[in-house]
Every structure is written in C-alpha cells, then in structure tokens.
C-alpha cells in the first residue's frame, strides 16, 4: 500500500471528496479479504463508518466540512480496528494514526497563532515601511531632478564646449534617476505578496479553527474584507477597466510581472531581436 503523506486538509469540497474516496477505499480493504468475498472484520462501528462516509459525501457539495469532521472520520477508522493485525494492517494503522496526530497538532499550532498580530500589526507595519521607502526615494529623486533642471537652464549660457559636457552629464543624471521607478515597482510587488500572505493566513485560520474556537474565529473580525481580497485576487485583472469593444482578456494578469532579476530579464538587444523576428 502506498504510504500516506499527511498534508493540510483545508475545508474545500474538492479536497474533501478525495479524502472521502480514500477513506472508503481503506475501509473496503480492511473489511474484505484479498479475494474480495468474505469480510475480515464484523465490527458494527466499521459498518457505521461507511454510512457516515456516505452521509458526508452527500453533504460535501453544499457544506464545507470542518476539520473536526475529518478528524472524527479518521478517529472512527482507527477505533474500528481490532483483533490480530497483519503487517499491512499495522502499517495502515500507523499511517492513519499519524494523519490524525498531524491534524491535531496543526490545528493547535494554527490556533496558537495570533492572526490579529499578523493582520493588524506585522503586515501593516511591513507595508507601511515599504510605502515610506517609496515616498522617500520619490522625494529624493524629485530633489535631484529639480537641481538638474536648474543646471540645464544654465547650459544655454555656457560655452559650446562646456555646454556639451554639461548636457551629457544632465542626461546621465536623468537616466540614473529612473532607478526610483524600478525600485518602486519592486516594492509594490512585495506589498502585494504581503497582502496575499494575509489572505492565506486568514483562510488557514478559518480552516483549522475548532468549533467555538474563540481565539481564532473571533479574531477574524472582518471576513468580508478577507473574502473581498480573495475575490479580488481570483477575479483576475485586479479591477482594471476595459471597454466591451476590445473584450476582456483574463490572461492579461499573467503578463504583470514587474522588473525581473538580472539573470531573468531580457535586455533591449534581445527585445529588439524578438521584435525583428515578427518582420
């Protein structure tokens, strides 16, 4: 039997469906001999287990299944095991027990996270700091350009030789100042990543918060904001407008990557060559 790798079970219907199919397959293997005919176990709990799986499967399309329900199913499966266990059964038991332990500890760790700190302090502080960097560099760049424009005005009164030297220097300063645009775009990328992390933290806490878990559930005070942010991400196009005449292109969002790392970016020569290939 393939070893089971426990992983975070979010309360998503598609993932629940996979888990329920797995549960049924395991239960079937445990109740039938390899010849597929006579039952190996006659434990009433295991009979009830299959009915519970069926009940859960009928609900999965309309109701998000809590992690407790998943853990209950796993626990029922473990509790139904009795009698002499074969080597394969023992292996399966250990895997299932490991899965249950993982679910319990993951839930405890996530509940222990204080999402308020993340959402209201750490992430906003990080975003504020980054915004401050962008503003500071914009101000500094503006000051440099103010002075450079003053020099450019004076160039006309310089000798031709000095004028050429000064003009070249002014141009070089303008070109160098474009760093502020690039750094601003990189920082904007980071801020978007932080917002994405915030949405996922909320979703993770919501998935693993136990019923009546006041600490996690109560701290998600603005579910609509989290859902709104999630919808915004998922909708694509980030609310950008475009007329009906040219139509909407859902894949345009994938083209918004911003400045690339030096090793990944195409240079102007590469771009010119690519454009030429269309001729």
């Amino acid at each position: 039997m393939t070893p089971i790798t426990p992983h975070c079970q979010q309360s998503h219907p598609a993932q629940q469906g996979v888990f329920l199919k797995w549960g049924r397959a395991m239960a079937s293997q445990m109740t039938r001999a390899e010849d597929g005919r006579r039952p190996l176990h006659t434990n009433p709990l295991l009979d009830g287990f299959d009915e519970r799986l069926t009940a859960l499967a009928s609900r999965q399309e309309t109701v998000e299944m809590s992690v407790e329900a998943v853990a209950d199913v796993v626990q029922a499966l473990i509790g139904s095991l009795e009698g002499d266990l074969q080597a394969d059964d023992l292996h399966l038991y250990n895997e299932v027990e490991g899965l249950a332990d993982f679910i319990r500890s993951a839930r405890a760790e996530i509940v222990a996270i204080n999402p308020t700190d993340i959402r209201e302090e750490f992430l906003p502080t990080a975003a504020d700091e980054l915004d401050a960097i962008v503003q500071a560099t914009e101000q500094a760049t503006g000051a440099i350009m103010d002075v450079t424009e003053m020099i450019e005005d004076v160039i006309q009164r310089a000798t031709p030789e000095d004028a050429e030297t000064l003009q070249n220097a002014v141009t070089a300063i303008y070109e160098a100042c474009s760093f502020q645009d690039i750094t601003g775009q990189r920082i904007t990328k980071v801020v978007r990543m932080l917002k994405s992390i915030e949405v996922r933290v909320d979703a993770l806490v919501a998935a693993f918060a136990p019923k009546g878990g006041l600490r996690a559930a109560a701290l998600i005070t603005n579910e609509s904001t989290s859902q709104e942010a999630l919808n915004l991400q998922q909708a694509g196009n980030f609310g950008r407008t475009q007329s009906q005449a040219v139509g909407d292109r859902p894949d345009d969002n994938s083209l918004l990557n911003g400045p690339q790392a030096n090793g990944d970016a195409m240079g102007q020569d590469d771009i010119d060559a690519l454009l030429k290939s269309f001729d």
Partner: protein
Amino acid sequence: MAVDKNMRVLIVDDYKTMLRIIRNLLRQLGFNNIDEATDGSSALQQLRSGTQYGLVISDWNMEPMTGLQLLREVRADAKLKALPFIMVTAESKSENVIAAKEAGVSNYIVKPFNAETLKAKMVSVLGDF
C-alpha cells in the same frame, strides 16, 4: 517626410518621476509639446478628446487601465489606430513583448533605458530627426 517636432506627444506613466524623466529627454530631442497622463484610462480620454497626437509613449503596469489595454483600445479605435505607440516598461519577458507586438505596438523599450535608446526607437517609428 521630415518629422514635425512640434507634434503633440502623450506620455503615460503612473510614476511622476518617470513622466518627468521622459519629458526632459524629449525636450532635449527638441519635442516640447508634451502632455502627460498617469494611467491608461485618462490617457484614452485625452486621445479621444479631439487633440491630434503624433506619438504615444506609455508604461505598461498601471491601474485601472494598463498600457497594454490602452494600446488595444487605440488600435480598436478607427480614429486612433494608426497612432505610433511606443511601450516603455520594466516588463521584460518574451511573452510581454509578443503580447505587445500582437496588440500592435510600434516599438518596445525596456526599463531602465537611456536617452540614446529612446531616440533610436522614436526614429524607427517616426523617421529621422
């Protein structure tokens, strides 16, 4: 035909510093009739206002309307479709260049760029000046 440096040029970028840089470089090249817009939507409004423009130089990554969407709008508009349009952007992946080319971009400059590159691309689009 000689390039009329009195033509009106529209530069579009959501970073004021970049608008300023491009404006100053254009002035060094002798182009002094320069209008600015900070996103594709306002740029499109200006283009459709009745003012005759000879060139658009636009960034890509802007909100609410990107430079790519602006380009598509321009090419879809019967009165604007022949307008020379140069994209100046940090988007440097091949799929970006291909998407822009398929949308009808006249030329493509990747940031950071220098004055020489700007002039060369303008010459390739407008002719010698």
